């Protein structure tokens, strides 16, 4: 084989590798985008479940109107929030309000036994889990994306096309990091 032939073969090989790496970066970045929008999907699910919950509880929790009102208010705040930080803060408030409701409902055995309430509790537990898992998946995707951007040889291609790092989803409200105290 001539020297030119060898050089050509090497060039083609390098081109192939370069294309593969670029495509991998695109795939990983799209994964991050998708994971981010998944979080919003789950948050919206929660918003949609709440009116039903309030309806079921209203009859039983006649003396706990404040709790239910807080939930309605928090939901409204969350839906109308615009910036990312506003949304995050509003969602945290809503989580606290829901926790309050379930704590209060413990004292009402009739409500706890209600079939609709049980079904709703499973749905809400599941939705909270889905929000958590969506955030977890987002962070996992960001980590994989960062590994690709930072590791050799993908980092060469990444720098060529300005693939930038993304922010991890972190809990901003410090109190959420503390373990919940269980008191008997």
């Amino acid at each position, binding site marked *: 084989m001539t020297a030119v032939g060898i050089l050509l073969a090497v060039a083609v090989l390098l081109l192939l590798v370069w294309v593969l790496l670029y495509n991998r970066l695109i795939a990983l970045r799209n*994964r991050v985008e*998708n*994971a981010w929008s*998944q979080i919003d999907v*789950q948050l919206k699910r929660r918003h949609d479940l709440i009116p039903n919950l309030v309806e079921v509880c209203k009859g039983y929790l006649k003396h706990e109107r404040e709790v239910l009102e807080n939930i309605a208010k928090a939901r409204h705040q969350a839906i109308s929030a615009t910036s990312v930080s506003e949304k995050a803060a509003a969602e945290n408030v809503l989580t606290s309000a829901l926790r309050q409701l379930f704590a209060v409902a413990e004292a009402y055995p009739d409500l706890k036994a209600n079939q609709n309430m049980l*079904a709703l509790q*499973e*749905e809400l*537990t*599941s939705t909270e*889990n*889905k929000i958590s*898992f*969506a955030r*977890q*998946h987002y962070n*996992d*995707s960001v980590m994989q994306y960062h590994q690709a951007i930072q590791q050799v040889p993908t980092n060469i291609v990444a720098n060529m096309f300005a693939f930038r790092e993304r922010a991890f989803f972190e809990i901003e409200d410090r109190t959420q990091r503390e373990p919940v105290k269980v008191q008997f």
Partner: protein
Amino acid sequence: MYRQIEENLRNTILLTASMTLLLLALGHLFGALLGAPLVGLVIGFLIAVMLTVVSYYHGSSILLAAVNAREIQKADDPQLFNVVEELSIAAGLPRPKIYLIDDPSPNAFAAGRDPEHAVVAITKGLREKLKRDELQGVMAHELAHIQNRDVLYMTMLAVMVGAIVLLADAYWRSLRSGAARGGSSRSRKGSQGQAWLIGLGLILAAVAPLLARIIQMAASRQREYLADATAALLTRYPEGLASALEKIAKDTEELRVPSRALQALFIVYPLQKQSSLDSLFDSHPPLEERIRRLRSMAGV
């Protein structure tokens, strides 16, 4: 748990490489010794590949029909449905179809050629015994198999084992027919080297199928550990699966599995439970060791 995943992946690569080497060595050796085109061998191999392709594309439906499973929708079992859906979000995979098996023994499996066509199934016996966290652990293990493309991997291994068995078999046949015809027409020049080669071929042909099976079962065990570790990573709660495995270990009922070939897909080995013998031919690692590894992750 990341460390365990890395170790598992490395072991998987090692095992696959060994299998490939074995296959190549056999092929090369026999090619060198026999010279003549092995038409029958090629046909046999093609049939094996065809069977594999069929099982790859229709394996799920065949398996589900064999164990009497019924697909469930959200209304049938909201908690199970939700648990699987939550895990699909965590894994970034489409939600697989969910099946319930009408059987009192505790077991579960995952099947399907890729995540878009995936299926998870659980027996009634197991479903009724588990709390939500444990159920999530078990389902996470099954989704981990899907995420790690284990069906594809084990199918590929099975094809390689099949090829090795075929090669070894073909070698014995040609030896017999060669001896009947009075040996090859090669001159005496390289007879010393020939003897060595024939001896090596004999040993390899005898040992290769056995070795291939051992490698295949070792790989199957590695993938089970990997699925456990991946499940822990998905849920960030290894205790869920550990607790479920403990409950399964206590139960002595055996699953009515129609064929031994299907056993590798289940979360626990369906036929032999309390075996203290760590056999090389077990498709699943011992339950106690799996539980121990899961609990050792808790600090991560």
